[in-house]
């Protein structure tokens, strides 16, 4: 009997191995959306807390990874909603070093600000597709929406983003 089946059958001892099996994957998914390691850690724990609470309704033959990713995505979107859009998005320190001239750094800051102002449900799609290059199908499964709905959100996100960038003097395509 695998660890999910044991947990779904009521074996509380199976929760720790289940957590250890999936928590890196869940953390990795959440940090790609929220871009904050500390918040991603808290949201990972919250995701597994939801799993623990749902143990009596779990399907032992189900796809635990997909279930966790969907819950994690919803929690990450809630986190983005609570986060003020004025807070700057986190860039990698290495990326800031690479942007050697002041003009380039300012442009990157403008892009981060414009991106952070996107509505969370559109931003998640743009983040996962444009930045993380996740397949549309995986994004659709994680959000629990259809493929065409993901593409529509993507279209709206890029349209808004281009408009914002053009207003601030950044041409999004070199």
């Amino acid at each position, binding site marked *: 009997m695998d660890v999910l089946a044991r947990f779904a059958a009521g074996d509380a001892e199976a*929760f*720790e191995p289940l*957590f*250890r099996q999936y*928590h*890196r994957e869940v*953390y*990795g998914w959440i*940090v*790609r959306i929220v*871009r904050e*390691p500390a918040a*991603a*850690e*808290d949201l*990972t*724990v*919250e995701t*597994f*807390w939801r799993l*623990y609470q749902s143990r*009596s309704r779990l399907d032992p033959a189900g796809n635990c990874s997909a279930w966790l990713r969907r819950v994690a995505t919803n929690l990450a979107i809630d986190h983005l909603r609570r986060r003020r859009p004025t807070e700057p*998005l986190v*860039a*990698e320190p*290495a*990326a800031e070093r*690479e*942007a050697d001239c002041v003009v380039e750094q300012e*442009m*990157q*800051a403008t*892009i*981060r600000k414009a*991106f952070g102002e996107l509505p969370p449900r559109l931003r998640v799609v*743009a*983040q996962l597709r*444009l*930045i*993380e*290059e996740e397949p549309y199908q995986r994004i659709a499964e994680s959000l629990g929406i259809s493929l065409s709905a993901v*593409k*529509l959100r*993507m*279209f709206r996100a*890029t349209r808004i*983003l*281009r408009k914002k*960038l053009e207003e601030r003097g*950044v041409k*999004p*395509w*070199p």
Partner: protein
Amino acid sequence: MAINEKDAEGLGGLRRRLQSALPPMKNREPRRDLWPLMRQRLEASPRFAFPSGVPWFDWALLGFAGGALAFFPRLIPALLYHL
């Protein structure tokens, strides 16, 4: 609604711009062992939980009825008569 050709052509440039400002965060690992944090979360949860599927209103009604019978025991025969 599908992304038209012009948009599809522009996505490459937009992607490059975004990735230079917000680099991908693939293959990230937690900075520490998260199990102790998880265990704290489990231990902080209430030990008693209502059986699932019973609405809170039913529990409130049961509590109210129990309290009423405790304070007014003369209601018990009347209640038994009506049951």
